[in-house]
């Protein structure tokens, strides 16, 4: 009888499970890749909406309430929407001071740190550009941080997380080789963006962003600035406008009509476009978008 109880209890112990709340879909994918069967990820933001302006719906409060841990991007990308959810979730495990909280920006070298923090320069991120997951070379670093984090809060499955990390890193390395090969001819190519959320992608592959359609971060395009962009496009002949999926394309279409430049939609996360459902699909799409002629 005692043996029976032992065997009944065993499966429950082995399948001990973490409910991880994550701010963005890419973090969910990484956490799932590393955590495997021992974690369930709850993604707070939709991949096709502006990551700065996620709606802090009450349904997300319910998710925060039940989370065992929280992983966020950081770099102030979530500053407009995550603090109210943390405040209202009434869950000490998602507090920034808790060991069950992970800020991925700490541990990543952010680029484009502003020399002056001033709202006159638009709604800037004081710590630098927070869209670091769009450098595919950063993905293994982020995966390792998540693996270390999961091991620190669930030591029992440390070896499983380490094995999953090793598998993921190996596969990702092959992807990196393929993308580097495909992107090599595009080094030095000039591009225009609406918002500079592809700074890391551009840097990884040597693309040169010559202008953004928004004059300053978070400030809508003005007619004067739009004309300046048009003049610059006529002078520099960039390949295309790499446009995010969440801002209106109206201004970009106006610029295309005036200059003939191509508009290319660039997803920033899983779910940004329907076909982008995995991390590798995200970078497959990004690399194909700028190499397809």
């Amino acid at each position, binding site marked *: 009888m005692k043996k029976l109880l032992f065997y009944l209890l065993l499966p429950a112990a082995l399948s001990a499970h973490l409910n991880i709340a994550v701010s963005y879909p890419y973090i969910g994918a990484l956490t799932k890749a590393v955590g495997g069967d021992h974690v369930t990820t709850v993604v707070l933001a939709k991949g096709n*909406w*502006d990551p700065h*302006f996620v*709606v*802090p*719906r*009450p*349904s997300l*409060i*319910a998710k925060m*309430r*039940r989370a065992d841990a929280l992983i966020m991007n950081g770099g*102030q990308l979530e*500053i*407009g*929407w*995550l*603090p*109210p959810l943390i*405040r*209202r*979730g*009434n*869950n*000490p495990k998602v*507090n920034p*001071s*808790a060991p069950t909280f992970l800020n991925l920006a700490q541990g990543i070298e952010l680029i484009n740190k502003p020399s002056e923090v001033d*709202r006159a320069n*638009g*709604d800037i991120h004081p710590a630098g550009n927070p869209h670091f997951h769009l450098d595919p070379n950063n993905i293994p670093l982020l995966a390792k941080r998540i693996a270390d984090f999961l091991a620190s809060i669930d030591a029992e499955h440390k070896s499983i997380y380490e094995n999953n990390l090793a598998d993921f890193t190996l596969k990702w390395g092959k992807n990196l080789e393929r993308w580097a090969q495909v992107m090599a001819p595009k080094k030095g190519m000039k591009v225009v963006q609406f918002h500079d959320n592809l700074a890391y992608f551009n840097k990884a592959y040597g693309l040169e962003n010559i202008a953004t359609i928004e004059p300053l971060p*978070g*400030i*809508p395009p003005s007619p004067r600035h739009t004309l300046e962009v048009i003049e610059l496009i006529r002078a520099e002949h960039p390949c295309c406008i790499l446009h995010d999926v*969440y801002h*209106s394309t109206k201004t970009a279409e106006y610029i295309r009509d005036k200059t003939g430049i191509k508009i290319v939609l660039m997803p920033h996360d899983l779910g940004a476009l329907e076909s982008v459902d995995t991390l590798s699909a995200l970078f497959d799409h990004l690399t194909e978008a700028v190499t397809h002629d």
Partner: protein
Amino acid sequence: MKKTLIAIPLLCTLLFADAATILPVEKRTFEQSKFIPDISLILDASYVTRNKKDDEIAHYEIPGVAHGIIGAHAHGEHSHATYNAANGFNLNYGELVLSSSVDPYFTLDGTFHFSENGVEIEEAYFTSTALPYGLRLRGGKLLSNFGRINSQHHHYWDFGDMPLVYQAFLGDHGINEKGVQLQWVAPTETYLMFGGEVLQGENEMMFGTASIADPTATDPDAAPLAESADAPALFVAYAKTAVDIGETTVMPGISYARGTSRLDHFEDEAPHAFSGMSSLYGADLTVKHYFDSYSFLTWQSEWMMRDMKGTQYALDTNTTTLGSASLRKEQAGYYTQLVYAYNMNWRAGVRYDSIYQNDVTKNGAVQEMEDGFDRISAMVEYHPSEFSRFRLQYNHNTALYNEDGERQSVDTIMLQANIAIGAHAAHDF
């Protein structure tokens, strides 16, 4: 010898020169700038034009419900203007917000209103961050979570003024009290929150605890008309839930407040006072649909009903005679508003206010009272950025009566500016 005398201080200067070196921030031993709280300052100003003069409108009232709800009014020893009170320019306030973690267990938030009339602590409270089981405790001076709009700061509202039923029942600040608040978020898939508050009960329109002195008494030691009530004397409870249907969120809530009423208006032009118990019932519904990251449609409504039961005292200023009567007021109203945000920059909205029930019973006899107090508002709003906002609002108010008991038609146009510097203010849904 002279050379030696000159050389010594120079030598000393060189020896100690290192002490004057300014170390980089990270090497200063007692550097504490990282512990500065989040600070922001929000300026709220307006230009108002009405078809009535300021001194006229100060005497308007909603019969049986409230008086002096537009314009400055004296109350006891202090005088404070309501928002957007004067024709012409108004500097409503500069709101200073300070916010930070205290330790792993608490956060501290303070909201201070600076105006020409002085400084007011609007909110100052600690909030627990480490309680288990979905609990959160908050204590200090706070805006109650009664209803929907009560807990939101003025600058966050979609319209420049309080809904009529709130103004009439609770005044411009709603339930804003010293006390404690406990909230519980249920561990369910669907959002479900229950809360309770124990508050001092000093709201000047509906709740109060101070004793009411007899204005006709010549003896300074005479017994008061009404003894002071034991404080805390206001209790609030509410339940809120929300469901998402696609990109639409439906968020209903119910609220209840009960407390002692000690309302001393003997210094008013029509001197009177009320002593009793009051209940306030609320139901709210917000439906919000997002079209994309920046555009949405919000339909928000709140219904309120109050039941005030006690004794009314009235001073006849001609005969200096004090009369008293048992009084019961059962009054109800609501507002409903629709706001459309076209994009990140432009919004427009309409609002309809109504106080439709005004039942007053005096000494058991039903009084003949006017009802059907209405107001309609429309607004257009422009946000140059996240940190500044300009709103043009029009109000048509037929809820007000003058001193002769004649219904008035008050038309107001307001141009409001709301401008913030400092830390990002992240708002709830």
